[in-house]
């Protein structure tokens, strides 16, 4: 499952966390050439929604 992470001062999206259920926790940058971010965008395009960021 994906979860958004916002900057605690600006409240802007800075990364996306994913628990891939194999023991790895990913912190994914918002960058178009990053394969994990590309897979996140594909996941969203399939109609899925990430968990919102924690309240600042």
């Amino acid at each position, binding site marked *: 499952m994906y979860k958004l*992470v916002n*900057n*605690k001062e600006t409240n802007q999206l*800075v*990364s996306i*966390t994913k628990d891939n259920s*194999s*023991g*790895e*926790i*990913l*912190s*994914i*940058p*918002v*960058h178009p*050439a*990053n*394969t*994990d*971010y590309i897979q996140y965008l594909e996941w969203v395009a399939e109609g899925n929604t990430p968990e919102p960021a924690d309240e600042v």
Partner: protein
Amino acid sequence: MAITINAKTSGAGGLETTADNTGNINIQSGGSTVMSVTSSGVAITGALSQNGGAYSTQPTFRNLIINGDMRIDQRNAGASVSVSSSTPYTLDRWKAFNNGGAVFLVQQNLNSITPPEGFTNYLGVSVTTSDTPSGTETHVIRQQIEGNNISHLNWGTANAKTITISFWVRSSLTGTFGGTLKNGPDATYPYTYTIDSANTWEYKTITITGATSNTWNTDNSTGIFAQWSLGSGSSVLGTPGAWNYSANLNGATGETVVVGTSGATFYITGVQLEVGSTATDFENLPYDVQLQRCQRYFQVIADGRVSINAPICMVVSQSTTVLHGLVHFPTPMRTIPTLVTTVTSYRANLGASNGNSTTNPTLDTIISTISARIDQSGFSGLGADSAGLVRINSETNYVAFQAEL
């Protein structure tokens, strides 16, 4: 014609010479020319040696496959990976792709069999749940070769270069096995090879004429998908031995379905993909060089499996609970990387104050291919505006960065 200098091997032996005015010289042994000197250069027939060893004229770094001898396994350190409807990375640079119904294990040196001579490691596959693939179901082991490393192949042009794949393979099954080279979306070359004897290492070579059509990336995205099929559905199989410039395929028609047999095994090592129509000996790179090549795509920066106190990076505290740190990568990465953690406990040492956290660090937007800022919360009692370090506080875990294709 040429001047000849012949060391006779018949009769009483001796030196025999003939002369002409061509300007050429042939040096012979027993009447057979082993060296020819002409105005255009020197030609050698037979083997060259230097200081008692073979003199190689093969270019270094000719193997486009990284970790072809399966020595590097940063993620799993020899542990098995269960592949079920997923696409995990296994050994460094080797990905398993499974969108079908089978389940199989991938592991470095699975079942501890003896590798082929000259190798110490191999990638092993063992089928735990069998499946008869249909439609587009795919089960493959693949390596995605970065486009930056294939630009010299001239693929997609009339000057495309021929390449040769070579590898050692062993299986509990025999018959015709398949695989593919492809660009991803629309150009595929299905190939086959035969495993003649069960549970026996066999050396295979496959020569493939370069692709003269379609687009082959030459940047930091995937240039070539090199795949070894474990069994795929008919919709993604193609006629072997020819380029198909309108299909994205994952296997060859008629291939053995490894995943169709529960308990079946498939082992591979010594994988080399090089320019030319002849396979050369596997190019052995020093371990540190091979590791560095892998680190462009995945690098462990703190390894609790090596040291429970493995440091992650220098940090400064923003508050009593939050740290900022800067990680500098030992090898520049392919692109902006993902932070990967398997750690459950961290400890910060800041001057006179220490603190623990079970919250994983996250990336900030301050990041490049050579360094990254990380943020970490969940501590307590840290001195504000203090500098120090944060480290792993649990064994068997690691912190890494990945920029895989």
